[in-house]
């Protein structure tokens, strides 16, 4: 049974659909990457799952199940009790994700207090254990450090320690390395992967960096303007993208420029709240657009267990 089943999740803000009929499912121990640019709705969909959407947002879904619990029909308090313990989320800015007024050790042991209990010395020991697990050198001394005394990489490790403190079944990482230096990014990604393998937890990694996706996850969902446009396993996605947006995105990468000076670009901009095109949302920018793309909105079609595309004329393997 899948650990997380989301079917047709939509999040609306005053009639603007930030997330439009998104379906995601992930099994125990699996890694899923959600990749998309700004305005794709990738962060908002995960925030909706965690119940972190602020006031005017409206969440609708056909199915929202975590570990066999139905999250739609429960009260917010019960939902928090389920997700708070078994789902952990880490964010992009390590320097602001921790409370600057409290030490790192205090914040981790707070998380332990709520979910695992134990007296102060037990929590202290467990915190040191966690710090070691996430690779913080000299953990006993770091317990008393304030966030501003630690570097970005260290802060992110503390946050990861807080996240895994309660042995979650699912870890959602929202751009966890975007604000970090490249070498530290490599360390943190390695850490996340090894933790994931050690503890068997599932991981959803949200990012806009295709390189991070290539190196870290097994399955990928590509999002555009609030919709999932493609779902594939990672090697298939990079060698044979099925959706024109995915292919255009890969071609715009400097790594793939194949020596020519000008990079292929995607003309136009992501549609905002006031200019949603009719038909396929990508049609104004697609270089393979055909007439029916402008009138008919494509549905997400599943080709196999792990492969789905939302396109009326998906790319054939020979087109890639």
């Amino acid at each position: 049974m899948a650990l997380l089943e989301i079917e047709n999740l939509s999040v609306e803000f005053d009639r603007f659909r930030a997330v439009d009929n998104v379906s995601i499912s992930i099994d125990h121990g699996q890694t899923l990457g959600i990749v998309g640019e700004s305005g794709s709705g990738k962060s908002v969909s995960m925030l909706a799952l965690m119940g972190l959407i602020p006031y005017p947002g409206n969440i609708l879904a056909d199915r929202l199940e975590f570990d066999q619990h139905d999250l739609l029909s429960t009260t917010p308090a019960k939902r928090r009790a389920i997700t708070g313990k078994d789902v952990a989320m880490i964010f992009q800015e390590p320097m602001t994700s921790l409370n600057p007024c409290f030490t790192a050790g205090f914040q981790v042991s707070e998380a332990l207090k709520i979910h695992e209990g134990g007296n102060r010395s037990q929590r202290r020991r467990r915190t040191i254990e966690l710090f070691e697990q996430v690779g913080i050198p000299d953990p006993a001394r770091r317990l008393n450090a304030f966030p501003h005394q630690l570097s970005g990489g260290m802060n992110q490790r503390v946050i990861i320690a807080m996240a895994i403190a309660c042995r979650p079944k699912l870890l959602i990482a929202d751009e966890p390395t975007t604000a970090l230096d490249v070498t530290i990014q490599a360390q943190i990604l390695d850490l996340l992967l090894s933790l994931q393998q050690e503890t068997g937890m599932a991981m959803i990694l949200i990012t806009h960096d295709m390189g991070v996706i290539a190196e870290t996850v097994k399955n990928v969902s590509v999002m555009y303007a609030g919709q999932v446009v493609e779902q594939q396993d990672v090697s298939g996605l990079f060698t044979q993208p099925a959706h024109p947006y995915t292919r255009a995105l890969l071609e715009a990468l400097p790594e793939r420029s194949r020596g020519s000076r000008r990079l292929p670009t995607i003309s136009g901009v992501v549609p905002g709240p006031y200019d949603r095109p009719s038909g396929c949302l990508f049609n104004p920018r697609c270089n393979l657009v055909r007439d029916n793309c402008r009138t008919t909105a494509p549905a997400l079609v599943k080709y196999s267990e792990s492969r789905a595309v939302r396109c009326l004329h998906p790319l054939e393997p020979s087109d890639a």
Partner: protein
Amino acid sequence: MPERGHDIVVTAQDLTRHYEVKQGIFSKPKVLKALDGANFSLASGKTLAVVGESGCGKSTLARLVTMIEPPTSGKLWIDGKELSAISEHQRHALRDKVQIIFQDPYGSLNPRKQVGTILEEPLIINTAHSAKERIVLAQEMLERVGLRPEHIRRYPHMFSGGQRQRIAIARALMLKPKVVVADEPVSALDVSIQAQVLNLLMELQEEFELSYLFISHGLSVVEHISDEVMVMYLGKTVEQGDRSRIFAQPRHPYTQALLASTPFVDPGRRAKRVVLKGELPSPIDPPSGCVFHGRCEHATEICKQQIPVLKNHGDGHMTACHGVDEGRL
């Protein structure tokens, strides 16, 4: 190394910038060596990329080259004039030769000013154009970067990140500079917008014969746009030379680690990756000898004691590493 036939627009010789950090009333202040001896020549129409992570001194270098701060020691020539040898007034006149583009498109434009005012400011300060002429120049530059002339009446918050970066580029070009210091100009942008802005930068470089001092930690972007590369770590230059050679055969262990740490867009290449251990040491208390020895797999005794010197190992490819000097690496 400068090529014949191209003018050199910027030359730096042992450029150094130290800051004094107070340690309380009773202790002697410590010295923070933000930049320690940078040497380069930038020719017109060429791009020199400065690569490194936080604390490597690249932002300090940007501030020195744009004359926001004076160097603590070393010499800097802009457009043939050596900065410490000329008067304040002459330095001021050099302002229109060097301009800057910043990383954060949301902070680099004054939120309270219209785009037209932002673009006209350099003209108001440095030239004697009439108001009408300034408006026309601003509109022309806006069109040149791909926006519409009527946008001069709008405020920055009405534009997306990529569009703001274009406005920032337009502002940098208003005075027709020879050198543009680009401090991580595409790092905060989405991939597809990044491609558009990079293309724009390269077109403008060809059209105006601009030189770029391109600061970035994104190696794929650097490989695409630069001619020469300078790799920095904790204020020191560790490797410098022609772009294709450095990317094909990086010699310094830090450069190799940087390249290895950059996620590669090919799932097939996942397995082998050298992950650099440890963290950046504190710049106030740098390690003795080679600043990188604490994290280097190949460090030996001499690395802990002697600071390596940037040496030319043939064809302008320079490295500061004892291991390379000794032929070990």
